């Protein structure tokens, strides 16, 4: 358990800059998610914290102590690897006990701590199995137990839920969060999956091209991304271009999109000058189909309908130059060309100023 600080970290591989002037402070017991697409530098950052690779510039501090050239095996950083990296020639017990045996602890203590941690991850009774005899979810929990049993000061999780099926993902999300809170261990998760990031972390850091784009609570990142790029990455489906209108009235400001006036909250449009070119963004599930015309209701025609189980995702054209993608709660049959009224809720629209 410890604080973690990264100060002005830069990592270059030849001409390529993987991480650029990265600054981050993680509180004791906090769970942080580094979120970004492949090649954004998140895994490189993780490997630098673990000590597998050295930063080109800058320093890493664990509990106030500079890591410098301290090798990985002296850092006391627990890592959960994406492919689990369980030792195939060792049983579950041997895998979990590996770190403790290296610490030369007495046999009785090793056995006690292994059985404690296996209880915690609900794997008791599987000690004698080999990794290949376990299911994916069980292997994952062995990997987690192995990373935790040495009581590391920092826990690093690399895509912890990526290889699991939907049901197991939810289960493991709950498990990881529970165990992390129980042990109050400072944790960094690296992931490309925004759901994984927002469901696990206390704070989410969105990265791209080796730089931090936004830092915020899961709610802020999920609902109020601060750029069109992040909105797209966070699963916003509908993007409409327009021109910012004038003064706020009742906390709302108009935006002209394809000749139609759409109201947005003054808060979302703060600091954007009238006449600027902007993009409005929203999620499918925030738009609704309505029966009557009204404020922020636009008319279009159905182009496609994809049934997704609990929602039907529609493609509606004709409202704007861009196609919009509202989702309905019920099953809707595809009727191409059918006219529809779509409501865009004022407080669910994000506004981004376009660069000239």
């Amino acid at each position: 358990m410890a604080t973690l600080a990264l100060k002005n970290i830069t990592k270059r591989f030849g001409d390529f800059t993987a991480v650029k002037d990265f600054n981050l402070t993680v509180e004791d017991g906090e769970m942080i998610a580094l979120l970004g697409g492949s090649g954004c530098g998140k895994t490189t950052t993780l490997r630098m914290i673990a000590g597998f690779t050295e930063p080109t510039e800058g320093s890493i501090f664990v509990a106030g102590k500079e890591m410098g050239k301290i090798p990985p095996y002296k850092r006391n950083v627990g890592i959960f690897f994406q492919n689990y990296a369980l030792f195939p020639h060792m049983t579950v017990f041997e895998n979990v006990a590996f770190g403790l045996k290296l610490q030369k602890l007495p046999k009785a203590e090793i056995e006690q701590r292994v059985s404690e941690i296996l209880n915690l991850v609900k794997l008791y009774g599987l000690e004698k199995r080999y990794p290949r005899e376990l299911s994916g979810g069980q292997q994952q929990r062995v990997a987690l137990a192995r990373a935790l049993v040495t009581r590391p000061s920092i826990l690093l999780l690399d895509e912890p839920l990526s290889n699991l099926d939907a049901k197991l993902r939810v289960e493991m999300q709950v498990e990881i969060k529970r165990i992390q809170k129980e042990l109050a261990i400072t944790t960094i998760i690296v992931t490309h999956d925004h759901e994984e990031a927002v469901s696990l972390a206390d704070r989410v850091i969105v990265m791209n091209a080796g730089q931090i784009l936004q830092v915020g609570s899961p709610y802020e990142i999920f609902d109020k991304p601060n750029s069109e790029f992040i909105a797209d990455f966070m699963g916003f489906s509908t993007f409409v271009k327009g021109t910012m209108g004038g003064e706020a009235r009742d906390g709302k400001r108009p935006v002209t999109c394809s000749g139609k006036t759409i109201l947005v909250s003054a808060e979302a449009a703060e600091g954007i000058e009238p006449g600027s070119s902007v993009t409005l963004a929203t999620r499918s599930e925030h738009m609704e189909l309505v029966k009557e015309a009204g404020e922020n209701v636009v008319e279009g025609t159905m182009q496609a309908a994809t049934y997704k189980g609990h929602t039907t995702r529609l493609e509606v054209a004709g409202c704007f130059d861009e196609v919009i993608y509202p989702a309905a709660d019920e099953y809707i049959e595809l009727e191409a060309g059918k006219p529809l009224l779509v409501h865009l809720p004022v407080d669910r629209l994000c506004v981004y100023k376009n660069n000239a």
Partner: protein
Amino acid sequence: MRDGHVNLLCKIVAILVMIFLVAPLLIIIVVSFTPTAVITFPPQGFSLRWYANIFTGTGKFMSGLVNSLKVGVLATAIDVFVGVFGALSICRYNFKGKNVLLNYFTSPMYVPSIAFAFVLLQVYSQIGGITGMTRVFIGHLIIILPYIVRNTVSVLHVFNWTLEDAAASLGANPIQVFFKVTIPLAKPGIVSGGILAFLYSFDEVALSSLLSSPRFVTLPIRIMNYMELTFDPTLAAISTLLILASLIIIVLMDKFVGLDMFMK
């Protein structure tokens, strides 16, 4: 049924192949127990006299066996060391000429051993004063190395290097990582390579026949020399013992390494 016919045909071919492979061995084993001085099949009676002849006869098989074991064991031991480190450095690091180096390590496999022996002979005669054992030993040391490198590389090629990072993150220093993770996981390749290399050295004829001196003769050369002079069932007896030894090696290997490890 068409499939039935195909199946039957496959079975017949398989059985014929197996007979073809095993029958000569069986005949040798049966013949080795014959009491007569001429090889006849089926044997007229039962006797162990040809087995006794291995140890007491003129063939000097036992000294040949000792020489073969000396060269084989020593060369294999040194080559396991050299080959494993060679294979590790080829697989672990990315560098230019990686494949060139691998091919260099395995090149003795592609050079006819008789040509190689000829070259070695020239070198030895330039230097002079090298004993028969050293001459054969150095030759074997070089020609069996590819088997160890190739087999180890084939295991390391699919090796999950993240396992080494995992071990390091759990507190294992590089030496502990090597002995607790890398070596145990590369073991199937190392052991099978080592056994292949040893067996190759053990029945190598072409190179040994050119390089050995009258005072240092390996078992296959002894057998060959014996065959040229006398053709009696002693040869069948010694062949039977060699077959038995091979079987024992395979059984031991299965017990200690597990043959199933080669199938994963």
